[in-house]
């Protein structure tokens, strides 16, 4: 099983042309009371690309802003969340700076067809009162075109890709196990062969054995239909197995971004280094150290580099200036004053 996952993982090289370009995105939770505006800067100046035919991983702890980031990208911007600055450009949505800025008709056209979403709780997607067959019709039929029979045929064939047989179509969600339900939602999200899929912790609620199967399926479907996937989880082990490139998020900003293999072989940001070094491994008895302090509050983040109060390499400049995200090695970007100097020198 492990071998299968790994061979699948070393498949085609992602082309460089981006499907999604995010530039200096700022999304804040803004509250106004008695004329006083308060911002919780959940996403504060994030820039990255997701390329065609790649799985782009996003890792971060709770309250690092990763959920806000993907919600903003998916166009789910509702007060108090506001996009304060920056742009989000999809190559299938020309002329608008993000789904939140596009007219509803355009968004309607794009959802499921070009952009789909795999969520953590499969029960939040599947209507408990509708059979799986009806859920597929509700979501996907109008995007697929063709006759009802042809659509049913397509659904049936597509379910085989996630190793489900046609009998699940007649089932209600509660009759299926958690792993089967999550496979149904993966089938739903991929049946229209969208250009871009957002996966938000899709395996976190699953048991370890099921998780491995589901990850393998996401990988094989992605390779088959050539979609780009933005895969979000806090579990570094999952990223190591699945993603092509990986970005580490800390307190509303990106700390580091590189090809996954590169980041594990050569982490540069002190936070990334800590995350990887603190993972316990079977067969390794060396004591693991915890990071001092706790993740900062986004309502009142530290000045300069947001990691500086917990950073072993902190210098004076870190308290004053925000470190820019710099490409210090080919395809390897880091936001750290200490690293910027040492690698360039």
């Amino acid at each position, binding site marked *: 099983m492990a071998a299968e996952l*790994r061979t699948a993982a070393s498949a085609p090289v992602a082309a460089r042309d981006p499907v999604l370009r995010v530039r200096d995105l700022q999304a804040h939770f803004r509250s106004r009371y008695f004329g006083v505006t308060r911002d919780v800067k959940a996403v504060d100046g994030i820039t990255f690309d997701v390329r065609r035919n790649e799985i782009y991983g996003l890792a971060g702890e709770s309250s690092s802003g990763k959920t806000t980031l993907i919600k903003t990208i998916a166009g789910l911007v509702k007060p108090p969340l506001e996009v304060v600055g920056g742009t989000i450009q999809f190559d299938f949505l020309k002329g608008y700076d993000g789904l939140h800025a596009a007219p509803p008709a355009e968004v309607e056209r794009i959802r499921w067809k070009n952009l789909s979403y795999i969520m953590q709780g499969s029960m939040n997607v599947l209507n408990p009162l509708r059979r799986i067959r009806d859920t597929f019709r509700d979501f996907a039929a109008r995007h697929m075109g063709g006759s009802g029979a042809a659509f049913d045929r397509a659904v049936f064939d597509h379910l085989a890709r996630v190793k489900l047989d046609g009998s699940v179509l007649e089932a209600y969600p509660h009759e299926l196990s958690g792993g089967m339900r999550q496979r149904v939602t993966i089938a739903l999200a991929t049946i229209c062969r969208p250009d871009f899929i957002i996966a938000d912790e899709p395996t976190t609620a699953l048991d370890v*054995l099921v998780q491995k199967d589901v990850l393998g399926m996401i990988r094989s479907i992605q390779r088959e239909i050539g979609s780009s996937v933005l895969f979000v989880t806090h579990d570094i082990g999952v990223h*190591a197995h699945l*993603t092509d490139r990986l970005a580490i998020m800390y307190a509303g900003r990106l700390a580091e971004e590189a090809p996954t293999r590169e980041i*594990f072989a050569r982490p540069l940001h002190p936070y990334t280094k800590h995350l990887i070094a603190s993972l316990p491994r*079977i067969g390794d008895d060396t004591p693991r150290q915890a990071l001092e302090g*706790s993740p900062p509050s986004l309502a009142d983040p530290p000045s300069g580099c947001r990691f500086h109060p917990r950073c072993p390499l902190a210098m004076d400049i870190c308290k004053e200036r925000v470190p820019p995200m710099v490409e210090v090695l080919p395809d390897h970007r880091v936001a750290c004053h200490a690293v910027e100097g040492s690698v360039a020198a």
Partner: protein
Amino acid sequence: MSALLTVDGVFKTFARGGLFSARRVDAVKDVSFVVGDGRPEIFTVIGESGSGKSTLARMILGIHAPSRGRLLLDGMDIASVRGGAARHAFMAKVQPIFQNPFEAFNPLKRLDHYLFMTARRFGNAATVREEEEQADKALRQVGLSLAEARGRFPHELSGGQLQRIAIARALISKPRLIVADEPVSMVDASLRMAIVNQFKALRDDLGISIIYITHDLATAYYISDRLIIMQKGEVVEAGDARAVLAAPRHPYSRQLRDAVLLPDVAGTAHGPVSAP
């Protein structure tokens, strides 16, 4: 010296359904083990959801009575704990720590309230001053202090801090055994090792045995002395933690072991960078 906890041929059967169509579900089937025989230890119970590990924890805490078999704490049958005083004495010896620290504390109550209440009930604190002393001492054992926790509400602290306060609360009664059900799965990665290292310190410095219930084999390897692996209510493999996890014998244990997503894989044969 007898063992701290003896689990002897324990079954737990739940009946589901109605009067005529009752189905019986064996949540725990014939489980036996011994914890803390001669010295304190961290004993890990590994299993997926539905393996019966939480039912087992509830029986050790005296919340459920076993359908068959016995659980002995210091040679005394846990099922025989009846009445306020006996229950009180039992709870002082065995303390729980739960998975989600945000759910374990009432969001409308201040955290120090929990510590003071526990000090009054289990620490024999008679005055406010004694309550504060005991709370502060327990918090210092987990690397916090009363000054940091005083007057704070649960939402003001991070998951890692809350979980440490939950541990401090459990320490006030000077327990012999702590039952921790998935204590780190809700805690952030950068704080997780602080909690895990805390359990080691409790064992080594305070002589407390810990039953660590988890599905995470990597942390189990890191902290446990001995472990059992459960599948569908039955123990499929038991023994020394390092020996079992290094070379699991039962097919199910091997499956679990192979499903661990090791970060090292990324460094060997993964990703576009490895393509020639």
